[in-house]
């Protein structure tokens, strides 16, 4: 027992002590956060150190490969532009991802429930998933013109197959006993999908959602590099900084892209995964 925390009764029994230890929350929370944080901080420091080391070796001139501190300085200076660009880019990402989510879920459900569709379309979805989304851009620009629709089209095409495939494998991994229970309780057709199939598929579907986001994000940045529009956006700023030989700016946009990747993964998908694991009882009591 940590000093200072109150015990409810004199503790002799080691089992009770262990029990109390486990259920006393106060001091362990800060400790938990710290124990999750310090490896990340260490890794970050190591990364910065390595970067600075490469700069010091003089491998490339400093205007090509500036030191991390120059880049962070630039990052701070350009923070309002970066923020504006981030908003545009994230807005597009959310829009494209939402469309992909609807398309992916509908396709995934249809394919997972129908043998004919599965043998017909199943391998095509996987084919689409492995196709580099940048390969779609020439066609997309020809069809939609140099505008946001061209970008969104590719974002949707990038994300939807992963989401659909994730749902298909989620449905395939549902314990048969749950489907049987649903049938026995009278769940048919849409009510079965809504009350049994979708919630039962959710734990393994999250993987597909996550992968879909990764593909959407990659497609989007590729699109913004190619399709330059009026509004500042991250991909466009990246390309612009290169065109203007403002390399610290270029690196600071990359840092921003990297940060967004981490934040979305930790906050959105990490939270969703933890929530699902806790709710579905897929988590050991000791790591909750």
């Amino acid at each position, binding site marked *: 027992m940590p000093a200072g925390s109150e015990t409810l009764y004199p503790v002799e029994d080691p089992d009770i002590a262990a029990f109390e230890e486990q259920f006393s929350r106060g001091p362990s929370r800060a400790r938990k956060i710290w124990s999750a944080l310090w490896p990340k901080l260490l890794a970050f420091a190591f990364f910065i150190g390595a970067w600075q080391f490469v700069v010091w070796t003089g491998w490339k001139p400093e205007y090509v490969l500036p030191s991390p501190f120059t880049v962070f300085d630039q990052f701070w200076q350009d923070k309002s532009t970066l923020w504006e660009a981030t908003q545009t880019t994230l807005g597009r990402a959310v829009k494209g991802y939402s469309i992909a989510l609807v398309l992916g879920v509908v396709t995934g459900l249809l394919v997972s429930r129908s043998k004919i569709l599965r043998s017909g379309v199943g391998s095509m979805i996987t084919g689409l998933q492995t196709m580099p989304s940048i390969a779609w851009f020439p066609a997309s620009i020809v069809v939609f013109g140099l505008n946001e629709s061209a970008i969104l089209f590719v974002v949707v095409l990038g994300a939807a197959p992963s989401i659909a495939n994730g749902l298909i494998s989620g449905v395939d991994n549902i314990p048969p*006993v*749950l489907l*049987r*229970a649903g*049938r*026995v*309780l*009278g*769940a048919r057709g849409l*009510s079965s999908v809504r*009350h*049994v199939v979708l*919630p*039962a598929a*959710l734990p393994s579907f999250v993987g597909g959602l996550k992968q879909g986001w990764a593909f959407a994000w990659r497609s989007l940045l590729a699109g913004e590099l190619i399709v330059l529009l009026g509004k500042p956006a991250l991909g466009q700023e990246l390309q612009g900084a290169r065109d203007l030989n403002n390399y610290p700016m270029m690196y600071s946009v990359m840092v921003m892209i990297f940060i967004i990747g981490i934040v979305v993964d930790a906050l959105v998908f990490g939270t969703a995964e933890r929530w699902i694991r806790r*709710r*579905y*009882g897929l988590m050991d009591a000791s790591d909750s």
Partner: protein
Amino acid sequence: MSNTRPLRAVDATSDPAPPAGSVVASAAVSIVDVRKHFGHGGGGVLALDGVSLDVAPGEFVCLFGASGCGKSTLLNLVAGLDKPTSGTVEVRANRTALMFQEAALFPWLTVRGNVDLALKLSGTPRERRRERTEQLLEMVHLSDFAKKRPHELSGGMRQRTALARSLAQDAQVLLMDEPFGALDAMTRDVLHDELESLWRTTGKTVMFVTHNVREAIRLGDRVVLLTSRPGRVAQITSVTIERPRRIDSPEVATLAASITDRLRDEMERHARGK
């Protein structure tokens, strides 16, 4: 999934008229000369062969036999989840509810949510559901655990929840496929008492599958002994021991010994090739 229409009467033969004299008009479940063959051609398995059984309304019938005797197959046929190869299964009830060895609760729902969903899926209007859920949880002594999730419950509590979920369907016929098979003996004893009193108060017809002969005698009005491969009715025993019975009472033990002997004879005959 396509062959799971909620059939109340399953008729696999083209002849709609049941064989004369074998169907008791008042039976809740009539099984007449049912054969069930799995697979195609010579490589298949004959799970049930010429099984006939009538279950009276309100009766508690236990199906007992070694594993592979087609007990579960028979319940699936009665539940309408599968069709017989030949013969008829007729259920004269509003519907059947089926409960199995795994509680098969939905892990994303609480205890209350699981019961509520069963009510919803069986078409209970929303305004009646809440009250009915509380009633059902009360019946299985889980009112205090309504907000728990399945993974937070013991095995016995999970089966209680599954029982409440089955009762929620308001079916006149309750089919139970080794529902207590995975529980420890103490918990099973308690659940036997609870099931018996629920059966008495609700007047449901129960078909209960078990591979534990004492459990069958503890609960059943009749014990149906099935042989293995193919499953046939070897013997039907009316249990006359007065209720409430105790699973460890000498009467139960005596009857259990005689039924087990009979089962052993059947198995030996089977091993010798009939």
